[in-house]
């Protein structure tokens, strides 16, 4: 760990990395910046942990990471979902390592059998007498498996803030929960379930390149010409057979012209949250699935059902590191591993009470677009890795985000802008600078 680097305790140097219309390459290549991101950004932001359908019963747990911190999300005996640091308070051993399991009423460390309730509190220590009159009661070990700073469960979606103090969930997300709400409401029962199996895709690039890409609407027709463009061509050469295969229907909108993306708009909320696809999107023109509309109309009434299904947002970013597609029921997590290494997890959700055909489409989309075996994924990853290599050179120092910059955007919230604006990226970089520096002390 570098305590004497260029940026630690130097908020001015960090602020200088983000200009109105360009950002410095150190955001992507500096390992010191990466470590500070873990301490300041990922510890003070509300970060997605998991979905409560992954832990349906008391004692069920799911292991994951928040920033660089291994945590375990567990259903406590009182039925609430808790998030604990995955570290025994005795010698530091990771207590559980399976991705999923059921621990019963307590966790038991496999090293010395110390036990912890599912709220993290220390339950038992073998040979307890040996700790009498040792000052044990005032040691850190008494803290047990330490809970994270704060947890919020929004209709099944569990977020946490590692630091005990900081911005509230409501203040952090503002109006942006509407995308998750829309995804949930697309179930006639208002209920989602995580589908077993997650696509895990290793990217040798910085995590922010993936965030950036989610609102980058000037790349699909270029980078994905090779995949989506070829899919359309192969289908046309076969005589455009109807009904159009589901896969072609999913691929084709990627190669829509610039005008399509310009018109669909981008909405920018505060704190780096926002979405592409305000009035239209690449998910707007999918075929109807028999039985779905009827189920929705029965559940919500015609008007409300139309409202829910008419909201066809494209990519919604919840800063810092997830992207949600409501109309297709996927959620991607960009897990930072190092300045030049990111693990992308793509999760799929089942709309409870909807026909299976929707799940079939969700899963097809996920493997065609987000898998390590996906041709669309190959297109994107090649670009990220080339960008990472390019930024590691000593040629130019800045990454451009000037497209459709308007100084007024720095004041507004809940703005709707041209669909090819880089305004959401700029808002994310401003949020980045704010979180990186707001609690950082200045070296004397």
């Amino acid at each position: 760990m570098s305590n004497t680097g260029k940026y630690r305790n130097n908020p001015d140097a960090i602020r200088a990395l983000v200009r109105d219309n360009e950002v410095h390459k150190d955001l992507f290549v500096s390992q010191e910046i990466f470590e500070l991101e873990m301490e300041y950004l990922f510890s003070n932001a509300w970060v997605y942990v998991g979905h409560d359908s992954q832990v349906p019963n008391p004692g069920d747990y799911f292991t994951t990471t928040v920033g660089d911190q291994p945590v375990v999300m567990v259903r406590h005996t009182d039925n609430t979902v808790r998030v604990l640091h995955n570290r025994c308070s005795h010698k530091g051993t990771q207590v559980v390592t399976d991705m999923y399991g059921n621990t019963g009423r307590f966790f038991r460390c496999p090293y010395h059998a110390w036990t912890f309730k599912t709220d993290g509190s220390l339950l038992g220590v073998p040979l307890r007498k040996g700790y009498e009159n040792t000052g044990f009661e005032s040691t850190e070990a008494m803290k047990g498996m330490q809970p994270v700073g704060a947890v919020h469960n929004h209709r099944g979606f569990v977020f946490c803030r590692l630091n005990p103090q900081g911005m509230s969930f409501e203040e952090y997300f503002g109006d942006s929960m509407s995308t998750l709400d829309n995804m949930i409401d697309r179930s006639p029962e208002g209920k989602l379930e995580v589908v077993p199996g997650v696509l895990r895709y290793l990217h040798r690039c910085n995590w922010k390149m993936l965030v950036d890409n989610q609102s980058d609407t000037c790349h699909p027709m270029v980078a994905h010409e090779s995949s989506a463009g070829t899919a359309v061509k192969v289908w046309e050469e076969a005589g455009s057979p109807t009904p159009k295969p589901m896969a072609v229907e999913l691929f084709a909108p990627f190669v829509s012209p610039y005008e399509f993306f310009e018109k669909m708009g981008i909405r920018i909320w505060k704190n780096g949250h926002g979405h592409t696809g305000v009035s239209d999107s690449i998910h707007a023109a999918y075929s109807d699935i028999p039985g779905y509309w009827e189920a929705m109309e029965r559940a919500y009434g015609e008007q409300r059902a139309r409202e829910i299904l008419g909201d066809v947002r494209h990519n919604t970013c919840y800063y810092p590191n997830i992207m949600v597609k409501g109309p297709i029921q996927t959620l991607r997590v960009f897990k930072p591993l190092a300045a030049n290494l990111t693990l992308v997890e793509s999760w799929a959700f089942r709309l409870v009470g909807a026909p299976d055909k929707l799940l079939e489409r969700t899963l097809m989309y996920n493997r065609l677009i987000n898998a390590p075996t996906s041709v669309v994924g190959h297109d994107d990853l090649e670009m990220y890795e080339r960008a990472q290599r390019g930024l590691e050179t000593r040629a130019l120092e800045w990454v451009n985000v000037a497209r459709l910059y308007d100084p007024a955007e720095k004041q507004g919230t809940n703005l709707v802008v041209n669909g090819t604006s880089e305004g959401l990226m700029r808002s994310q970089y401003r949020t980045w600078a704010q979180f990186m520096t707001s609690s950082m002390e200045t070296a004397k």
Partner: protein
Amino acid sequence: MSAVTDNDLIEFVYREARLLDEQRFEEWLQLFADDGYYWMPLLHDQSDPVLQGSLMYEDKLLLQVRIERLSGQRTYSQHPRSRCHHLLQRPEILRDHPDANPAAGKYVVRTAFHYVEARGDEQSLYAGWTTHTLRETADGLRIQLKRVDLINCDAAFGNIQLFM
């Protein structure tokens, strides 16, 4: 139709791998039945390719897209091109497999493999087994389903761009 021998089935699997290693993708695709599928499960012991997540589950149209894409001028993830190599254990004919029915011209063959995919200076090794469901047709044996199970199907991978 002449009777399909064990050796025919074994030779079919070897030839299929060789066509991939020699990048003769169009010929390779012709080995699939018109309603054939290539499947790479995401879960260990996965039973359903449609309602459970998979790495790949592709019909001939999607396989054709992949093949045309590989040779496209603007397929930047293939600059430089990838190459692959299959090292196969002797294929084993699964006579007790529920899909095997020699009387109806259906055979199931299991083949353990090590597969290497290389691009530029890097290469990756994958290990697992392939289960071919083959069907006898007027044109010879065709692939009904090629299922590729990786021992670490749920691991984090970089790009896998060719066919195992």
